[in-house]
């Protein structure tokens, strides 16, 4: 199992408390390098909270989050300041409710993701203000990279339109492309398929597979859509009430009694839905 042999992220005994509420309790799992790992669980299980801990938006009450780079350096994410997690640790994320810069163009959205490298190239604005060629080249490269991603997500024709004007599915894809423009080694996606129609959902699967294949980026995703989860993930972690109830390959999890029970514990509709998806 890759997540045991070569993990890119190891979550150990993670606990997140909000006042009296324990949203995540003693959670340990690992994310394999180059894997697509799905984090699933009923509503309110604490999935987004785990993401917020990994990406520095919350400071965990307890636990350790260690990220291993290819070259063997290990970073403890819970100790890094929020903005370093993207820049130094190379972890990127998207949000459950899309957070694009709606009043900026699609291209501008992607360039903001290149902030740190461009800032260095512009000599912290000084060289840029003087119009030195070093910065021009860096900016041209950033635009090329943006173009590459726009071709990939089929939005190249809308590069100069405001992001807020895009249809919902396109906004979801753009948010993923924007996260990818930070050159992450781990990409965390919070319900990327929510609100997509079946065709868009299929395209999303293709996009995620190609991200993994072409860029070697490991993907950690939260998803309710079981066709996405079972279709593309190599590893599934199931969360219920903040604790891990199952961890394994999609086949193992599909047949796990506690997982079925956890979903049975929720509304009937959802159970039927899940049972249909997992083929019960």
């Amino acid at each position: 199992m890759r997540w045991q042999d070569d993990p890119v992220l190891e979550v150990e005994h993670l606990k997140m408390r909000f006042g009296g509420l324990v949203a995540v309790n003693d959670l340990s799992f690992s994310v394999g390098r180059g894997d697509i790992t799905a984090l699933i669980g009923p509503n309110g299980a604490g999935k987004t909270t785990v993401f917020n801990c990994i990406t520095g938006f919350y400071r965990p009450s307890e636990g350790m989050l260690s990220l291993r780079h290819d070259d063997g350096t290990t970073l403890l994410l819970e100790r890094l300041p929020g903005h370093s997690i993207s820049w130094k640790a190379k972890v990127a994320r998207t949000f459950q409710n899309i957070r694009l810069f709606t009043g900026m163009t699609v291209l501008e959205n992607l360039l903001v993701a290149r902030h740190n490298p461009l800032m260095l190239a512009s000599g912290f604005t000084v060289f840029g203000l003087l119009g030195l060629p070093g910065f021009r080249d860096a900016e041209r490269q950033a635009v090329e990279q943006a173009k590459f991603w726009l071709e990939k997500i089929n939005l190249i024709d809308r590069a100069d339109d405001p992001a807020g004007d895009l249809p919902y599915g396109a906004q979801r894809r753009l948010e993923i492309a924007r996260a990818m423009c930070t050159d992450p080694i781990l990409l965390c996606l919070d319900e990327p398929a929510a609100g997509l129609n079946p065709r868009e959902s299929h395209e999303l699967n293709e996009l995620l597979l190609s991200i993994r294949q072409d860029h070697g980026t490991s993907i950690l995703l939260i998803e309710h859509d079981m066709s996405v989860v079972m279709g593309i993930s190599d590893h599934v972690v199931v969360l219920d009430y903040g604790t891990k109830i199952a961890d394994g390959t999609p086949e193992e999890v599909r047949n796990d009694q506690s997982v079925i029970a956890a979903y049975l514990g929720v509304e009937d509709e959802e159970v039927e839905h899940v049972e249909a998806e997992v083929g019960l």
Partner: protein
Amino acid sequence: MALNTPHAPAITAAEVTAPATGAQIAAALREAGIAALLTLGLSIPILAFKTEQDQANALYLQPRWGMVAAACALIFALRFALCLRAARRAAAPARPKAPASPALQKLFGIAVPLFLGVAVTYPMLATLASGGLGGARYWIDLGILILTYVMLGWGLNIVVGLAGLLDLGYVAFYAVGAYSYALLSTTFGWSFWLCLPLAGILAAFWGIILGFPVLRLRGDYLAIVTLAFGEIIRLVLINWVDLTNGGAGISSIPRVTFFGVPFDSSEDGFASLFGIPFSPMHRMVFLYYLILVLALITNLVTIRLRRLPVGRAWEALREDEIACRSLGINTRNTKLTAFAIGAMFGGFAGSFFAVRQGFVSPESFNFLESAIILSIVVLGGMGSQVGVAIAAVLMVGAPELLRNLDFLKQVFGAGFDPNEYRLLIFGLAMVAMMVWRPRGLVGHREPSIVLTERKAIAGSLVKEGHG
């Protein structure tokens, strides 16, 4: 779609002019009745009675029910008309709103060179129009005043318009700049050209000092704390008498020189150096071009910054701070740079103010000043450079225009002073703006980089920031 067929306009036109239905009239009547009742309630304590004195000097109440009735009737009629119009509008099919019509954009395209041309030739125009350099004094003075506010508006635009941080104490940096020049030049005798950059640096420094504790606050809290900071600076200037000479201010600040050559009638003054007859207006014209250059530098730097990563990060911060953090932007430092650079331009403008006046006192840096600069930014359209310039001309130029409307005296009698209605008109104009152009005069955003085609972004998509 049916609306695109040639017949459609006739249908929509018919709908727009269709008579209001009975239900609509009834609703409008009810609304108008409520408004009239409210007016009645309000006008009883305000309008209904007037205190008068009789011969014995005793006070008695003079009833004025006619006036109350007139007010109620007026409000009733206005409200009724407004409701009917609104009802008809709602019934008419909504037309999609174009982000910015091409005609308007073209207008802005012409506006920029036109403005620049007028600004550069303004002293000549004023001289020609008033038949002599001496006569143009008033107009050139007004030009200098307007340009000072244009520069201040552009400086604050970086903080409020681009970074979306509501700063109500911008005048503090203006004051820091003015006092920096005043103190450095009177104490050490340093020249204006040395003090100008120093004043900017000092103001930026104060921007950072203020920013560190304050920028973790957001929205209303940030606004209130910056407001307090503006007041603190003013109170320090008043009370630190040893340094600032308190409320009396600092006078006899050295005047501006033509890069070392003084503007006086002496042998090596400006006039004799160039072999032209001496005129006190030379200095005024020089000051005019000085502030024009300073303002244009502010503008050029801002335009450039917008296209650099730091400027894009400011705008991204205004749009969504959380997303910025997830993309690795250090939000605190980015806000600080906006604050510091905005403050620096405020400092430049302040030291210009000091050299123009030759006198500074804390009175010049009260909250009203901050409010005017902020209104210029908001009226102009947050983030738009052209809008800010137009708004500054309107906000500073219009009251001066009001002062010169002498013909109104013939209409309303000799005792009528239109200038007294300045704040009333200002308030009405603000309300009208918020109704018709809530995003300011220039309500769209220009993208900072373009791949194939430049398109303006509708103001409704652009966020205003929340601190």
